């Protein structure tokens, strides 16, 4: 039987506000354990939370950028459960009146745009971190109370690749908003996935598995692929599926059962009486809306329009905020009206260099003026495209300017016809047969002769001019 995969993702983002969600402790990673704590985030008796307006602001930004409706009335609720990393044994979260609902994120699937629904975006607090040692378990509460944004998608994703694209798109938007580091390996972005299979065409959802413990986007994709296959095998063999939580073990490249549904967990949510219901005014929302930066989709449309880029090329450039900013600087400084050339350089040689060096475009350290200068040499036919690429490599390695490198290595293309004629004459003399072939209409011979000229000129001859000169000489002979 053919199955359809149904996936929903639950993403948690640590917001990079200056202070924690409900107290004034600084958010400051990599510090001595329990050095960024106070009675409030330690849940000491008598302490009380006061919500952080900056965190609320960030959360509203994210909600708006994801097209969600920000609710005017919202409140915080207590989610009650016992765990030693949770200082109060309840987490301040949001239950029935989340900050916002009904958002979306567009991804590309099978070459077409696909809209993934976002059920809710809400604010909550992070827990501490357990450190297990041989004879004891220790708790570091530095992380406790850091604002977390929970973003829950609809079960609209139908493959591991779509899930991967959704995460990439989400990360990109959040990066544009500059409200979280979105680093899955460092835990500032966490993702749990719900996955189930159903017969193709069926409307009913199958029995789902909740996947945890993925610590990269690729891990999410691999875990989902593994799980889809595992579930399909189970269904094929007619074995009953059980709702369960499974952990992804990256080393073994498989998921293992953590717990089966032990009766739905009862978190006994109720409104936190320490934090009053609050109203987010329309004015506040429209103020935040107006202050939103240009988002990836908007930048993409603008790049396509302003720089006459294809959707594909523009898409590559806007897929990272800093890269897009770097690219735009280069495009702006490029003096030609047609920006295509610069765009090609950015998504061509520059991107390959970046990939080879495991860097992002903007991290290459190329000065946009230098890049413009390098492209200028090619434009003026003073440098072959091939040489230009090697100049770029040397620029990146040495930090020297294009002009310096070209001069030092004597790379300027020979466009001086007198000198070229001299070389061509020598080549024809040495390759009489090919010259005759060309004369007799064997056009293949032309490329051979051009190649020989290039060789003799150590690659500096301008191949276009060489071609013209050879043709003229043979035709006139």
């Amino acid at each position, binding site marked *: 039987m053919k199955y359809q995969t149904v996936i929903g993702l639950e993403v948690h983002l640590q917001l990079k506000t200056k202070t924690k969600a409900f107290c004034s402790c600084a958010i400051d990673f990599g510090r001595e354990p329990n050095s960024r704590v106070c009675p409030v985030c330690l849940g000491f*008796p*008598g*302490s009380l*939370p006061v919500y952080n307006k900056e965190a609320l602001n960030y959360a509203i930004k994210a909600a708006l950028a994801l097209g969600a409706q920000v609710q005017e009335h919202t409140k915080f609720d207590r989610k009650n459960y016992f765990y*030693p990393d949770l200082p109060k044994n*309840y987490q301040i979260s949001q239950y029935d009146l989340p900050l916002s609902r009904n958002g979306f994120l567009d991804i590309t699937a099978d070459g077409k745009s696909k809209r993934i629904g976002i059920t809710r975006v809400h604010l909550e607090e992070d827990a501490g971190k357990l450190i297990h040692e041989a004879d004891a*378990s220790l708790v570091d509460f530095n992380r406790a109370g850091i604002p977390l944004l929970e973003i829950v998608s609809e079960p609209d994703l139908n493959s591991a690749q779509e899930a991967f694209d959704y995460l990439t798109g989400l990360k990109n938007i959040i990066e544009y908003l500059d409200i979280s580091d979105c680093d899955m390996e460092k835990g500032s972005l966490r993702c749990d996935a719900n996955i189930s299979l159903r017969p193709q065409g069926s409307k009913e959802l199958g029995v789902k598995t909740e996947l945890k413990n993925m610590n990269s986007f690729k891990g999410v994709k691999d875990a989902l692929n593994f799980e889809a296959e595992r579930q399909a095998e189970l269904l094929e063999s007619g074995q009953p599926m059980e709702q369960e939580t499974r952990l992804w073990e990256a080393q073994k490249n498989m998921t293992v059962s953590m717990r089966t549904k032990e009766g739905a967990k009862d978190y006994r949510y*109720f409104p936190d*009486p320490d934090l009053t219901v609050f109203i987010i005014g329309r004015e506040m929302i429209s103020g935040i809306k107006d202050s939103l930066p240009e988002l990836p989709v908007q930048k993409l449309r603008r790049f396509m329009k302003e720089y006459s880029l294809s959707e594909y090329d523009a898409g590559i450039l806007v897929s990272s905020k800093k890269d897009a900013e770097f690219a735009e600087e280069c495009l702006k400084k490029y003096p030609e009206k047609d920006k295509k050339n610069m765009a090609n350089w950015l998504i061509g040689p520059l991107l390959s260099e970046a990939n080879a060096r495991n860097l992002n475009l903007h991290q290459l350290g190329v000065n946009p003026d230098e890049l413009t200068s390098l492209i200028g040499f090619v434009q003026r036919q003073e440098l072959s495209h091939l040489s230009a690429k090697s100049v770029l490599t040397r620029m990146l390695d040495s930090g020297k300017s294009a002009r310096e490198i070209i001069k030092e290595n004597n790379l300027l293309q020979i466009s001086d016809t007198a000198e070229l004629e001299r070389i061509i004459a020598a080549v024809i003399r040495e390759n009489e047969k090919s010259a005759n072939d060309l004369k007799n209409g064997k056009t293949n011979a032309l490329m051979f002769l051009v190649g020989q000229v290039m060789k003799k000129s150590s690659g500096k001859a301008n191949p276009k001019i060489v071609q013209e000169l050879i043709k003229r000489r043979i035709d006139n002979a």
Partner: protein
Amino acid sequence: MTELNKLTAHELLERLKDKEITSGDIYSALQKRIKEVDSKVKAYVRLDTLNKLANQRTNEPENELKGLPITIKDNICTQGINTECCSKILQGFCPPYDATVINKLKNAGAEIFPLKANMDEFAFGSSTENSHFGPTHNPWDKACVPGGSSGGSAASVAADEAIWALGSDTGGSIRQPASFCGVVGLKPTYGRVSRYGLIAFASSLDQIGPLAKDVRDCSLLSQVIFGYDPNDSTSVNQDVPDFSKSLTKDIRGLKIGIPGEYFVDGMDAEVKTIIEEAINKLNSLGAVSAKVSLPHTEYAVPVYYIIATAEASSNLARFDGVQYGWRAKSDNLIEMYKKTRGEGFGDEAKRRIILGTFALSHGYYDAYYLRALKVRTLIKQDFDAAFKDFDCIVTPTSPTPAFKIGEKTQDPLKMYLSDIYTISVNLAGIPAISIPCGFTKKGLPVGLQIMAKPFDEAMLFRVAHTFEQNTDWHKSKPKL
């Protein structure tokens, strides 16, 4: 020289101002009194701290309260002084910070008395019998309870072991013991006093308030501790009037509502007579009393015990042995939780945690918690309507005078009903005061409760002070 510990705060402040005495003299008088009588009253806990901390006193602060000592209930955090809510589970907990009210008191020049006042564990009770340290005795009859949960605070003031004190009131925990011990006790409007540093019982009901020997002291202490606190989201940014201007001794023309629902079966006949006489007194002073109806009164106790226990079950979850207080020896995490909480909490605490957990559970939430919230709104609306026609409402503080120690411990429901007249005030968030208004034949004090609309504590002081200055009840002292 009169025994300084028997004077009111305002009398002592006069003498301090005139440099007739020093705050050290008052401190010594209190120490002496405690040594003499506290073995009978047991108003204080951890008595060994008295001598330990006595030397750490600061000298004669220049500010308005001039080093006057104040007694603090064991659930209000005091930096450097253990704060254990009279529970084993908080054994040894010494807060690294002061509650906002403590800060305010210190800034005003008060001396935080190093002994903390006894209370029902986590303020769960109406008799101070639920203290891990054992019960406090009523100074008027040592076989009787002092009321609760601020029984230690009330008894210490009544027995002149304190000049004045802070308590907390979630369902009557200041007013009922004030009534049982013959002192003045105020439950301020919800949001009037910062709860920061008050170890929470039921966050939407708790308020810190003063217990004092007369209304002037009560207003003086209110003046110091009232006010907005940015560290408490539920505190309200509302101006605090100058309460000395409320002590006018003039209540002519004030309209006083007498709710029929508060004068029903189960009320002690003697209490009823004493309250009626008090109302007559108010009328004779120029007030005009008339009947008023608070139709949802009968639901107050069940609504309260759902909301208060629900919040308490969550508030008390943090006492798990991980960070502070009592931790039972155990081999693993779950065992640590179970043993620590099993050994650390007393019976009443366990009862309320179980009740509250149940009320919040899936499938019961709507029927209990949500419904209780709705009825709470109706109770509040009763008061809103009543205060359209009346300046204040007068009732007994408690249906009975102080009962015998052990009399109600086996019957929690009976115990819960002793708060029947005080609970609605907390549910509605309004202020109310209890003042002495007479004695039973056996010599037990009876308290008169006056309620006012939100943030109108000035009205309470005005009526209470006028009544007090025209009676002598507050001048009687128990024989110890």
